[in-house]
C-alpha cells in the first residue's frame, strides 16, 4: 500500500472517510428495475408467435372451402410459399426478443451484485485465518460497494451505447413486425372471412325453406366468423403492442444520457404498464 493510502486508511478518521466515499459511490449506482421490467415484458411479447403461425396456416384453412382442384392447388402453392417464410418470420420475433433480453439482463441489478462471490471469498479468507474476521467483514463490505460502483458505471455506459447503436435498426425491425402483423396478417384473415362467407352464404341460400338444419349452419358460420374477428383484433392489438415497444425504445434513446433519472424510469414504467394491459387483451382474444 502506498504511503499516501496507508495514511488515509490508518488515520483515526479513515472509517469516516471510507463511509463517505462508499455512500457517494452508492448514490451513483442506478436502480434500473423499470428498464429491466420493460425489457422483459417486451421480450415476452416478441416471443409470442401464435399469430405468425396463424398467418402461415391461412391458405391451408381456406383450402377446405374451395371446391375445384385448380383453386386448391393455387392455395397449396401459397401454403408452401408461406412455410418457406416461417424461418425468416420467426427470426424477426427472435431478433427483437434476444435484443430485449440482453437489455433486460444488463439492466438487472443481479448482474452487478457481488454478494455471493464476495461471501465465498470472505469465508475462504476467514477459514485460512489470513486476517481477523471483523477485518474480513469490513473489507468485504467495502469491496462490495467499490465493485458495484465500478461495474454499475460500466453497465450504464454500455446500456447507453447499446440503445444508441440499436435504435435505428430496432425501429425498422419493430416497424416491420408491426406492418406484418397489423397489416399483412389482418389482410390474410380478411380473405379467410371472405372465403367463409362465400361458402356459408351459398349453403344457406341453397337450403330448402324452413329446413331446421339451416339455423345450425348459421350458428356454425357465426362462431367461425367471431373467431376470425377475434384473431383480427388480436393482430391489431399485437401490432399496437409492438408500436408501444418501439415508442418506449425511442424514449430510451432520446433519454440515453439520463437512464437512471426518475423521470425516465417513471416513463418506462408507464410503458410497461401499457404493455401488460395490451398483453392481457391479446390473451383474452386468443384463448
Amino acid at each position: 500500500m502506498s504511503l499516501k493510502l496507508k495514511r488515509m486508511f490508518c488515520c483515526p478518521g479513515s472509517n469516516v472517510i471510507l463511509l463517505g466515499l462508499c455512500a457517494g459511490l452508492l448514490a451513483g449506482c442506478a436502480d434500473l428495475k423499470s428498464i429491466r421490467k420493460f425489457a422483459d415484458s417486451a421480450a415476452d411479447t416478441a416471443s409470442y408467435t401464435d399469430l405468425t403461425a396463424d398467418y402461415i396456416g391461412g391458405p391451408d384453412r381456406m383450402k377446405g372451402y374451395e371446391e375445384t382442384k385448380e383453386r386448391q392447388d393455387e392455395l397449396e402453392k401459397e401454403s408452401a410459399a408461406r412455410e418457406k417464410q416461417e424461418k425468416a418470420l420467426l427470426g424477426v420475433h427472435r431478433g427483437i426478443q434476444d435484443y430485449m433480453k440482453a437489455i433486460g439482463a444488463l439492466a438487472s441489478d443481479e448482474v452487478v451484485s457481488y454478494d455471493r462471490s464476495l461471501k465465498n471469498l470472505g469465508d475462504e479468507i476467514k477459514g485460512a485465518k489470513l486476517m481477523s474476521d471483523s477485518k474480513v467483514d469490513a473489507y468485504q463490505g467495502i469491496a462490495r460497494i467499490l465493485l458495484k460502483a465500478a461495474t454499475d458505471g460500466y453497465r450504464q455506459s454500455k446500456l447507453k451505447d447499446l440503445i444508441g447503436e440499436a435504435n435505428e435498426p430496432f425501429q425498422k425491425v419493430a416497424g416491420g413486425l408491426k406492418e406484418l402483423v397489423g397489416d399483412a396478417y389482418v389482410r390474410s384473415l380478411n380473405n379467410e372471412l371472405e372465403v367463409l362467407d362465400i361458402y356459408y352464404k351459398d349453403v344457406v341460400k341453397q337450403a330448402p325453406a324452413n329446413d331446421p338444419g339451416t339455423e345450425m349452419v348459421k350458428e356454425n358460420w357465426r362462431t367461425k366468423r367471431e373467431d376470425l374477428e377475434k384473431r383480427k383484433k388480436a393482430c391489431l392489438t399485437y401490432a399496437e403492442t409492438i408500436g408501444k415497444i418501439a415508442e418506449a425504445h425511442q424514449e430510451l434513446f432520446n433519454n440515453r444520457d439520463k437512464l437512471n433519472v426518475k423521470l425516465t424510469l417513471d416513463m418506462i414504467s408507464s410503458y410497461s404498464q401499457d404493455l401488460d394491459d395490451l398483453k392481457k387483451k391479446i390473451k383474452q382474444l386468443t384463448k
Partner: protein
Amino acid sequence: MKINAGQARDLAQQFHDLATAVGDFRFDHWDELAKSERDRLKDMQFMLLNNSTHFITELVGVILDDVQGDLEALQKVTANAEKALENIADVKKAIEIAAELVKLGAAVASENPAAITSAVQETALVVGS
C-alpha cells in the same frame, strides 16, 4: 420484376375488392342466374381471392427482405450486449477464482496432501468453468 410493398398491398386489396364485388353481384342476381353461371362466378370469386392471398404472401416477403439488413444490425448490437454481460461476469469469476486460490493456499500451508489435491481439483474446476 420485383414488386414493392405498396404495389403488393394495392394488388392484394384490389383482388379482394373484386372478389367481393363479384360475390355481391352473384347474390344480388341469384334468381336470374343459371346454376352454371352462379358456379362460374363463385369459382371466379375464389380465384380472385387466391390472387389476393398470393399478393399478401408477396407483401410479407417484401417486408422480410426490407428488414433483413436491420435485423442483422440488431443481432450485432445484441452480441455486443452479451459481450458486456460476459465482461461483468468475468469480474465475478475473478472473485471466485481468488476464493479458490485462498483455499488452495491454506491447503498447501496445512501440508495435508488430501486437502491439497481436493483444493487443486476445485480450483481447476472454477478456472475451467
